[in-house]
């Protein structure tokens, strides 16, 4: 007669038990595991397994300094009075709750365009007709009027341009960004004013600005460079891994100008629209408030 297998947290050393639990990639598994017994629950919480799972999914989280848990009314929770747990233990339990929910969010697929508004462009040729706001409109022609953003002209092809946007939520997971360059049918030869390559940055507003010349944003993620096609179509740029953007700022960096405008001999970049696809954005009041 064979014995049934035993609770491995009893007969294995903690490091090996940890190795087993770390193989679990689904936050729901970690929650169910903590329901099995008090010992397993304590093991999951005290080893910060939910937080570690989130860090594996999104290395960008390593920049997070601390997490504040809000209750259902959106108010910061307080430690229970007379709680027998130490401060460290309370912090571990809070982390466990917050990161369990967070991990769950990150896996729920709600695809949406998450650019809420345009913040600024590095340059604009004719303001406001050719401003960055035109890129929020998918169509390149509205009631007979062309809708696109134009950079200012440069003789040096290596002067980059940036388009900076605010996302729909402070916490977003971005999987892909779509951009369509503009084809000027009203010019001879119908030139397409694309860029040679594009790169994306994500981050948040700087906490304090000492003087106006300071860079306004802190970038927590920079994507690899993607080559851009010289074609008038919506071009998809899929990030190598879904990226967690904390702070809600996305910047499109257009590198190397390609198209010269015949009229003035300068190189321009013109863009019809920018779309940014997220797989979920956090709206749950229980989780929020992340300080970087």
């Amino acid at each position, binding site marked *: 007669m064979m014995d049934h297998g035993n609770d491995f947290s009893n007969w294995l050393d903690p490091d090996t038990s940890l190795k087993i639990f770390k193989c679990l990639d689904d936050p729901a598994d970690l929650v169910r*595991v903590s329901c099995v*017994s008090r010992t397993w629950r304590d093991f999951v919480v005290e080893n910060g397994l939910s937080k570690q799972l989130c860090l594996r999914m999104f290395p960008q989280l390593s920049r997070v300094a601390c997490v504040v848990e809000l209750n259902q009314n959106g108010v910061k929770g307080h430690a229970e009075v007379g709680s027998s747990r130490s401060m460290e233990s309370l912090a571990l339990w809070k982390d466990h709750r917050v990161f369990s929910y967070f991990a769950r969010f990150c896996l729920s697929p709600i695809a949406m365009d998450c650019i809420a508004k345009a913040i600024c462009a590095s340059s604009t040729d004719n303001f406001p007709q050719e401003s960055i706001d035109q890129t929020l409109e998918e169509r390149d022609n509205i009631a007979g009027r062309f809708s696109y953003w134009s950079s200012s002209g440069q003789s040096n092809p290596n002067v980059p341009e940036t388009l900076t946007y605010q996302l729909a939520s402070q916490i977003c997971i971005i999987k892909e960004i779509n951009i369509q360059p503009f084809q000027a049918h009203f010019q001879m030869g119908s030139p397409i004013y694309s860029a040679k390559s594009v790169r994306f940055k994500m981050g948040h507003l700087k906490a304090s600005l000492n003087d106006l010349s300071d860079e306004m944003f802190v970038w927590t993620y920079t994507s690899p460079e993607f080559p851009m096609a010289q074609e008038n179509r919506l071009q998809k740029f899929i990030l190598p891994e879904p990226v967690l953007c904390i702070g809600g700022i996305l910047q499109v960096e257009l590198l190397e100008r390609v198209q010269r405008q015949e009229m003035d001999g300068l190189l321009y970049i013109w863009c019809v629209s920018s779309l940014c696809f997220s797989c979920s954005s956090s709206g749950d009041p229980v989780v929020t408030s992340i300080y970087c």
Partner: protein
Amino acid sequence: MAEEKSQASSSKMLTLKASDGVLFEVELNIAKEMKTVQAYIDDCEDIETIPIPNVLGKHLAIVIEYIKKTNEEYDAEFEKQWNMDDLQLLLLAANYLNISGLQECLCKAIAKRIENKSPEYVRKVFNIENDHSPEEEAKLRKEYKWAFEGVDKD
């Protein structure tokens, strides 16, 4: 000349003696995958028989076969064959003998038996007593309702 010498050393055989007395003759390069055995050899170069007091012959045979055959395909099939008792003893053996590839493979195997299963099932498979109070468990299940949906049937 140099070639012959290296050939000779790589085909040197070693004997491993399991806890129940079963003897296994293995090539040196196979034995060296077990870091514990490697340490033994480093300490006493001339040794021919190494005792493995913590591992039964049955499991040592499986471990040796694993080392010889391990690759992605083999590993994927390997973990399916064993019941919890054997997994348990094999993992203890892998830990004692310090074979990182086998440790990883077995940890994944045990994790697979937890994935997407209900707590009741996991308790049964690992023979774990539920020491949550009914109120505690009810609270957990309510708070994390989402985690208890779509679980594999027991």
